[in-house]
């Protein structure tokens, strides 16, 4: 890359950025060639998002220089970045789902009529959008409401939006985090096409398998500094992990617990509102980790919500230790010793603008009262204990949760629930969007709980995780359990086969 300075499209030198209480980027140098797919990886808090946000004009760096096409540029706003042909597809979807595709694609940059009224040129708007959609192999009408698209479809609209400014650099921050395998493959196809057209792509992801598949080059960040580059041939899972954490992770998954044959959590003829025709039956035994695999949208989260009493099931029975129980609300579930660690940390798991202490003790708060008064000393003791137990990295338990990194936030969610000493633990995508080290810690925690006899049901879409942690795999497809795999039957093909509706 360095030998051919002429083709270098973008150069960033000595980029340094401070945040309250932290140095987010420390003299980061990198370059990007025309038509190159550069993957940027690193643990949470390593500075990946900050770096691309500097490039996208969202953050202004305290130090450093940016050269684009050999010219020095200052990117001080999103508008400037857009003008320079730098486009950003964010991790979270930023679409107005009440409006149609074309309106979303050209939002804020609508083509106008050339008369004095300057009304929106609707004809051009829809024609241009249609062109872009064809460009990325999407055969949707530009008049379709975004609301009616799948998550994968909405992600493609984000990309269409980025392309509509004729981007030469496309930044994608975790674009596949909510996509199914099929949608991911379609996205990769589009990425390859864009590459052929000379668009350079910066691709941020936690999914190392995807990085290996898609990237021409990998840049690894650690603690706000570049810890290494890997060329196409050098990219391997081990090398990436080593650069990310600065050490070898010998064994990702440790299996120490022994599942017993004693059924703890039995679900019989359970009917979830979203799939009224299907009856769900399964059992989790004492000290067993059962993984519920399947594609996004298979109905796994809905099932978990119904089991926890967030929404009412249409029918069925739940047995806990052979005794039937009734769950009409989360309170009922918690009383029975069943807890759910929800998928969406920000929406369901945490109150981001509140203190770590408040969050950890929120679900168990009524245990720390005497004569209806909260015993604050006890609350603080419990919170501190949980922080130590789960090794949450923070300055103080009075810190706001939003100031923690993703992995530590997830540990706070777990801490909140483990205060309750559950009998049955439902985990919905417990390691989504967190770094490898935090992942490993969470796996170890699950091991520990299983060896204490907790029955654990994990919803997971990450194949390595599914195969690595499970004692038994249940696969869901279209609202029903399409198959069950015992340890000897574990294989990626078997899971994919069942998840996609194969018999």
């Amino acid at each position, binding site marked *: 890359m360095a030998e051919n300075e002429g083709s270098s499209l973008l150069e960033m030198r000595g980029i340094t950025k*401070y*945040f*309250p*209480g*932290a*140095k987010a980027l420390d003299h980061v140098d990198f370059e990007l060639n025309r038509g190159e797919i550069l993957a940027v990886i690193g643990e949470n808090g390593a500075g990946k998002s900050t770096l691309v946000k500097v490039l996208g004009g969202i953050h202004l760096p*305290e130090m450093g220089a940016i050269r684009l096409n050999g010219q020095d540029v200052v990117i001080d706003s999103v508008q400037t970045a857009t003008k320079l042909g730098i486009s950003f597809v964010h991790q979270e979807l930023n679409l107005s789902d009440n409006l149609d595709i074309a309106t979303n694609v050209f939002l804020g940059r609508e083509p106008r009529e050339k008369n004095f009224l300057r009304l929106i040129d609707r004809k051009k708007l829809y024609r241009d959008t249609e062109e872009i959609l064809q460009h990325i192999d999407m055969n949707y009408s530009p008049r379709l409401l975004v609301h009616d698209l799948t998550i994968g479809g909405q992600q493609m609209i984000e990309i269409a939006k980025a392309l509509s400014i004729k981007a030469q650099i496309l930044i994608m921050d975790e674009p596949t985090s909510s996509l199914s395998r099929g949608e991911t493959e379609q996205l990769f196809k589009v990425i390859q096409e864009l590459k052929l057209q000379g668009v350079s792509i910066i691709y941020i992801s936690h999914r190392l398998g995807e990085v290996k598949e898609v990237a021409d080059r990998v840049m690894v960040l650690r603690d706000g500094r570049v810890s290494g580059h890997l060329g196409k041939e050098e990219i391997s899972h081990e090398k990436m992990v080593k650069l990310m954490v600065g050490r070898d992770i010998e064994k990702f998954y440790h299996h120490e617990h022994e599942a017993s044959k004693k059924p703890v959590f039995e679900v019989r003829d359970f009917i979830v509102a979203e799939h009224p025709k299907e009856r769900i039956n399964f059992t989790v035994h004492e000290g067993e980790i059962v993984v519920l695999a399947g594609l996004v949208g298979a109905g796994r989260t809905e099932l978990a919500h119904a089991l*926890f009493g*967030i929404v009412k099931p249409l029918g069925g029975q739940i047995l806990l230790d052979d005794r039937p129980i009734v769950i009409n*609300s*989360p*309170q009922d*579930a*918690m009383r029975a010793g069943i807890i*759910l660690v*929800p998928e969406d940390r920000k*929406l*369901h*798991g*945490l*109150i*981001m*603008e*509140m203190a770590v202490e*408040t969050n950890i003790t*929120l*679900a168990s*708060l*009524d245990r720390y*009262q005497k004569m*209806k*008064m*909260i015993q604050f000393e006890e609350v603080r003791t419990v919170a501190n204990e949980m922080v130590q137990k789960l090794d949450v990295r923070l300055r103080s338990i009075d810190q706001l949760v939003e100031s923690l990194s993703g992995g530590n936030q997830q540990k706070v969610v777990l801490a*909140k629930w483990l205060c309750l000493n559950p009998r049955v633990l439902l985990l919905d995508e417990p390691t989504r969007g967190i770094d490898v080290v935090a992942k490993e810690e969470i796996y170890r925690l699950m091991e520990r709980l299983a060896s204490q006899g907790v029955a654990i049901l994990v919803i997971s879409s990450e194949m390595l995780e599914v195969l690595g942690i499970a004692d038994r795999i249940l696969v869901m497809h279209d609202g029903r359990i399409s198959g069950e795999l015992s340890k000897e039957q574990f294989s990626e093909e078997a899971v994919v086969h069942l998840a996609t509706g194969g018999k």
Partner: protein
Amino acid sequence: MKRIAGIAVLLVVVMLITTLIDTTFIKGYNIMNIMRWSGLFGILSLGEAFPVMTAGIDLSVGSISGLIGALSANFIRMRGMPIALALVICFGLAILMGYIHGLLVTKIRMQPFVVTLCGLFIYRGMARFTMQDVTQGYGNAFLGLKFLAHGRVPAAFWPAGQAPRVIQDWSLPMPFIIIVIVGIILAVFLNRTVYGRYILALGRNERAARFSGINTDRMTIVAYMISSTCAGLAGILFSLDLNTVQPSTAGNMYELYAIAGCVVGGVSLKGGEGNIMGVIIGTAIVRVLYNAINILGIATTLEFGVVGLVILIGVGADEVIKSLTARRRIAEVRSAHGSGGAASSGTT
């Protein structure tokens, strides 16, 4: 805490400026008057704070206080009802109104603004219709009851007019004592019981609170009941204080004063944030402003303008200070890192 200190400073500054221009402001009689009004309006603001903390709002408190105030006078004087019975009915009605608001907000999922806006109209209509727009009052009797609004402690422990001059001047008005009691009860509820934390938690993120096993519907209903109960109490005290209650106008616009008190007092309309002391001081600031306008002889036509402007400046300054402190923290980190790698935490 910092926040309360900030608005306390604002209160002192407004009082100081007024005193410097005209010293009659600081006379015992005037200060006690302000405390009485702050007490009456403060009870409304304290109640209002709870729906606001759940990220809702209660626009009906003015109408509730008008209706309950008029009804209490009507029951006790016109209908000759025993005082205790009348009060039970009045408070029962107020609590019921809040309960209905809460039910509509949680079970029917209506927007708090709409529910309580309709309440604002309906209760006003009920007051006018049931009492046929006839002004209500207690006449010259019921001195015991009126003590709640007019009484002054400790001057009341002496026979009428025989207390020493200083005590007469500096005796605390009953509404102020009532708001201290109400304030302590609500502060304990908000800060020391699990319910207070539940209300703040659900105000910030209702779904996360529900996933944490909190009965968010019930806590929201409780918040609206606190609001309407406080409005009922304030309405009765207002009616005793003024002794004339016009069903068509009593309590008009009071919901906006209540919200103003909350906003100045640091209760975020986003929900999940608020404290009792701040709301009381916030209300006091608004009352002091009114009083200052009077004393300084500023045209009363300017009243609203001045009050609005001061609130705007106060709340605006608060936001500016917040973003400035955030920026200063960044600068600190920068200089700490910049001074040769070793992070020295001792920089200013």
